């Protein structure tokens, strides 16, 4: 693995990436935590990628628990790839890897140098793009209650009931009709797609995109995302062929993210194309090898 690829792989697995100077080894910044051979204290020099909550940690000392095999010396300036551990009177994180901090390396990891949160979101958007079944750019031309649901609701209300279980977690599904400008990932070319989304602002659904007429951007759409039992429980009826869902906050992105999303989509498409070939190749190669072995004997 090349150094760049290694950095990328570590950054994909880490939520909190920062450049820091090692201050002490076998030490900790938390009163409630005993120092061990693997705990070190570092001063954060620059936050490269982080959730918003931790984006202002530059200049502060934190505790890092080194991973197996990691070794550091006081005074070293390193890039740490970490995830959360202890959130108390101070912060302790668990390292999944570190490397020497060089200017080009830090620059390469920071597409938005002044915004570590945006760096993280950008990375998440890429991950979301690779998982999407269909990626289109376009605009929402209408938002409606699914036709079947509207009919069922009218019928149920006439009988004094409701179609959904009465729960604060009910999704209250709606459909957004999107006029497609361009398809960037997924089968066929679409002029229009229908996206089902929960209109509820309940805690279960508040983070799902709430589409509005006129909304324009990149839509990262998915076929059924909910397991069958949960879908039944949530009244998520079977989707028709051209219907998709958008449940993740990253399923709608502004147009400015399009170049990176395209890159992520093509990378995942390339991986997908490569995967069947290797799967097909494997069964053929094993009997061939056996035959070759027999011949060899």
């Amino acid at each position: 693995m090349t150094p760049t690829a290694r950095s990328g792989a570590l950054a994909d697995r880490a939520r909190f990436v920062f450049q820091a100077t090692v201050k002490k080894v076998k030490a900790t910044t938390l009163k409630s935590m005993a120092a061990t051979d693997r705990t070190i204290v570092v001063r954060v020099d620059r936050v490269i990628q982080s959730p918003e909550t931790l984006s202002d940690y530059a200049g502060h000392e934190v505790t890092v628990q080194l991973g197996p095999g990691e070794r550091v010396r006081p005074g070293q300036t390193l890039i740490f790839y970490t995830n959360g551990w202890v959130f108390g009177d101070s912060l302790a994180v668990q390292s999944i890897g570190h490397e020497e901090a060089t200017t080009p390396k830090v620059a390469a990891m920071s597409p938005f140098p002044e915004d570590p949160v945006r760096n993280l979101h950008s990375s998440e958007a890429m991950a979301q793009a690779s998982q999407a079944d269909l990626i289109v750019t376009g605009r929402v031309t209408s938002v409606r209650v699914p036709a079947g649901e509207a009919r069922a609701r009218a019928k149920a209300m006439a009988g004094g009931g409701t179609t959904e279980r009465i729960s604060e977690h009910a999704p209250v599904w709606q459909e957004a009709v999107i006029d497609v400008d361009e398809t960037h990932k997924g089968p066929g070319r679409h002029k229009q797609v229908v996206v089902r989304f929960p209109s509820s602002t309940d805690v279960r659904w508040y983070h799902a995109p709430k589409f509005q007429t006129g909304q324009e951007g990149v839509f990262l759409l998915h076929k059924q995302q909910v397991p069958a039992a949960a879908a039944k429980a949530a009244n998520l009826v079977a989707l028709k062929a051209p219907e998709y869902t958008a449940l993740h906050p990253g399923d709608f992105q502004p147009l400015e993210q399009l170049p990176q999303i395209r890159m992520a989509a093509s990378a995942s498409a390339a991986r997908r194309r490569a995967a069947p070939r290797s799967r097909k190749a494997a069964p053929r190669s094993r009997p061939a090898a056996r035959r070759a072995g027999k011949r060899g004997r």
Partner: protein
Amino acid sequence: MAARRKSTLAGGQVLVVNMIPRSLSRETNQDSEPSITVNPARPLEIVGTAFTGDPMGGAFAPIYLSSDGGNTWRLNSIVPSAAGSALGTGDISLAFGSTGNRLYGGILRDPTFNFETLRVAAAGGTTAMQTLGSRPDNDQPFTHAISKSARDRVYIGNNDFQAAPRTATVDVSANGRTAQAVFKSVRVETRSTVGQDGPQIRPVAHRDGTAYAAYYGWRAQSGSFPGNTLVVTTDVVVVRDDKGATTGATPFRNLVDPSDGQPGRLVARNIRIPFNRNGSPATGQQRLGGTLSVAVDPRTNQSATVYLAWADQPPQSMLTIHVRRSTDRGVTWSPADLFTAANATNAALAINNAGVVGLLYQQLTGTGATRRWVTHFRQTSDGVNWADLVLSTAPANVPPRRSIRTWATTTTSSPSAGTSTGSSRRTTPRTRRTSPTGSSTSATPILPLTGCWRSTAPPRWRRRSIRSSSRSRANRRAIAGGLSMDEVFPVLAGVIVGLVVPTVVPSRLRWLVAVVLSVVLGVTASWISGELAVSTVYILIDVAQVLGASLATWVLVTAWRRRSARAA
């Protein structure tokens, strides 16, 4: 811990504490539906829960943990969740056994929202809570645990849609300590329903084996839930089991109502409650759906004394809390309310080991833009005299759903981030932020620590228009453009007034017309920008802007005309 201050409460002490650890002072999550439970075996160990995700997006949601009686807090991510979950967990309710330090719980697990029963040997350890059972199609788990003869009896009330139409259910484990603890789902509803019961099913138990549960038995409905007009006609029902509901084929049937001979005492009949999909300004943005809490006197030989709080919607009240008491094991109840609170919700009752009853609730006061959510903590030893301590008072109209300027400049607080179980946090995206090592400026979080409460009762129904960090950023991006656009209307209106008034209006009326138009246009500017929903102070700002722009224009136009006249 970021901030503390002391106050007094009926001879005891209240410690004001910000439960957000200092290392997370920058966090802006709303952390809705807070609840709290104390370890009876180690009263200094306190666990809080909320809709809080792991700060780094880990696969386990955190609990808030204090090991020193609430002085300091840390997050311990041990609740099963999903990597990257912004929510952390859906509904969550935890409780300690009275001995043995084990922590039990019921959650709706993100992202499936399956109902999962949980256990962990130590709340402060690094071992994640073990999932003992899981099933879909459920709502509002509510946990109570009590130890007897080296066994932990665990009760988790839940609204089990798999049991429709009689959905009120209590999952009971006769001994949660066993390696493979088994929960039995006890259906406590025996009467006809409208298709389901209400989501609040609240169990409580006494050391002598007596177990109670209270629930809303839904009997009829009108209106539409998607349309936000649903009104439910419901009974308030209390059931009891004298052997802890751990034996027999049909537990919780020791209490029979004399009116129909069915199990379950009907403490209130055919009351009406709204069941909202969304909150509204009239409800202080709170989603209403009833409130229910039950507590039993934990002292020896006092299991016959039960307190019950519920809410209905009488005329002229958004929701009214009623508190009544039974001293004969739920057979008869005080004929009138021991305590009533109009326009109130999120009731939580508890009785400590001195027999003192605590009642926490939130009340909407004022009208229009001056509405406030006031959180009360009341105490009584006799059910007659209720000492009152106001834990917090907060504007009811913030954070508004859409108001760019508010998000940027005002201190926000909401009942959903509120204080119903004794934990309270303000969510102040801009003003509360401090450096990771600095001290918070948050003003009012309060944690009552008078004695060791035997049962805690998290409120389960809150407004949940939650703002994620990404959303707040989006809002802040909008602020950059939004602020300037907010000023365009009053300035432009002022320019027009300054141009038109000196030209059209007779000179003796010009000042009067200019002022009147400025007031009208200033109010209009505040209204269309949404700021009026935040504060009437914005009217003054916008009126001043209109008046200032009109006067400036007036002066310039007059000067220009004089100059032109001189030139001519």
